């Protein structure tokens, strides 16, 4: 008896190993699809609550402060240095093409269309998706979600809706501020270190920047805000038990939000690029 199982294991081990790899990949793919499916359902349910009363305005204001106002310093600093570095890189590249206007134009377009919203999205994902995930997961494991229900309050309306509205509205504002500070960073480096004429630099920036550039960047930021809040709420609401569940909800929120932001950014860039 013992001999036969040993034999079986020996015979199986080789093919099992090679079959295990596609099996793991397949299982992962299925899990990701199921995950995205339930996130989409979660988002649809939440959107249904956005339009139906009661509305929790105090919670909305609190969420706007938490997500928007307190993110300003970190978004501003990041954008400043990103714009400054961008100016140096473009100078290095455009020197080879001897193009005078490249730095102001590409800094402006690069910040407004791409770096502003994406950097802002990733930073807010790190700061806010994690805290939303942790907060809601903690509320879940300490019975606060059930307590809300016993106090005749719908958790989705009270916790999820304010965060989704706040993040979606506030992210374009943050990205706009990031755009301006990033362009300022490029301006400071270009005029201070690279010898650009300040008046000409501003002139080029304003002349070549189009409304559609700005709008496409702000639309991206709004979508990122929606992604961040939905992901944070989803992982918080579906957390496991105890401190471990809270921890996992926190890290999963940041990881999933960041990946989705980069993916959505590419999809939207394709879309705006074509039109």
């Amino acid at each position: 008896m013992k001999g036969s199982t040993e034999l079986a294991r020996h015979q199986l081990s080789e093919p099992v190993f090679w079959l295990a790899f596609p099996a793991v990949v397949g299982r992962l793919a299925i899990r990701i699809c199921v995950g995205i499916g339930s996130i989409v359902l979660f988002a649809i349910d939440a959107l249904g609550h956005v339009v139906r009363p009661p509305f929790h305005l105090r919670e909305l204001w609190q969420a706007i402060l938490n997500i928007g106002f307190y993110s300003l310093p970190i978004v501003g600093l990041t954008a400043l240095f990103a714009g400054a570095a961008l100016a140096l890189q473009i100078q290095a590249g455009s020197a080879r093409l001897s193009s005078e206007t490249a730095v102001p134009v590409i800094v402006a377009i690069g910040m407004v269309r791409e770096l502003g919203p994406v950097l802002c999205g990733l930073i807010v994902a790190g700061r806010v998706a994690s805290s939303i995930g942790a907060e809601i997961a903690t509320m879940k494991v300490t019975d606060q979600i059930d307590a809300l229900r016993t106090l005749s309050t719908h958790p989705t309306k009270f916790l999820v809706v304010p965060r989704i509205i706040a993040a979606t509205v506030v992210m374009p504002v943050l990205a706009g501020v990031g755009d301006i500070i990033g362009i300022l960073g490029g301006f400071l480096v270009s005029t201070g270190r690279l010898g650009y004429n300040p008046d000409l630099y501003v002139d080029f920036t304003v002349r070549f920047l189009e409304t559609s550039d700005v709008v496409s960047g702000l639309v991206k930021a709004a979508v990122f805000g929606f992604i961040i809040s939905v992901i944070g709420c989803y992982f918080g609401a579906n957390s496991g038990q105890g401190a471990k569940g809270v921890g996992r909800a926190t890290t999963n929120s940041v990881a999933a939000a960041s990946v989705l932001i980069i993916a959505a950014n590419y999809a939207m860039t394709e879309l705006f690029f074509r039109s």
Partner: protein
Amino acid sequence: MKVSVATPPVAPDEPVIELRELTKSFPGNPVLRGVSLEVAKGESFALIGGSGTGKSVILKCILGLIPWDGGIVRVNGNKPSLSSIAGGARIGMLFQGGALFDSMTVFQNVAFQLVRGPGRVSAAEAREIAARKLERVGLEAKIMDLYPSELSGGMQKRAGLARAIATDPDILFFDEPTTGLDPIRAAGINRLISGIVGESGTTGFTITHDMSSVRTFASKVALLHSGQIVWNGAASELDTSDNSSLRQFVEGSARGPLT
């Protein structure tokens, strides 16, 4: 002519809470295997049983927080569900850890339901009611502007009790009200519950494994074991009944039919 109301008036002999053959399993774990019990209006009912026997699961079914597999659950004759907590009855619940909202002050917690929803009152009135309720549970009104994290465990539980009674509900639920408290604070909470449940016809439903709670405030008791009610009766029968399961639980011995 009578105007129809959302919750039909309960006939005096109809139970406030009624479970019939309630079953509920989690994957690979049949927790409840046919639980039947009735709680009459104004009664202080205690559901006792060992840890992990499914007391909290029963409570969650009565509130409608989780779906069950089979049987009937009625609160005031209505079926509880997520969209109709406790079948729409006016309830208050004290959670095991208090479950205070930690992003809000004690006042905002206690007044949560007072300042929201159809029957809301002004902020000043809410403060007055909150102060009265805090006093009722033995807390000073001056802690109103503290956050839950600034309170001790016993005070958090009292604040949770103040929140539960803020709107003078018809049914009060207590999940292990004394767990995690020292005997003196536990006795204090037990006395509070005893007083509050007796007031103005409030019905009490407590789940606990603490016999001192049962002896302080329960009028009816049911013992849950292996997913079924193995004994139920009046609190006065606790020491006279010769049910071997009950004897073992009451005396707290390791040997007996309860494993």
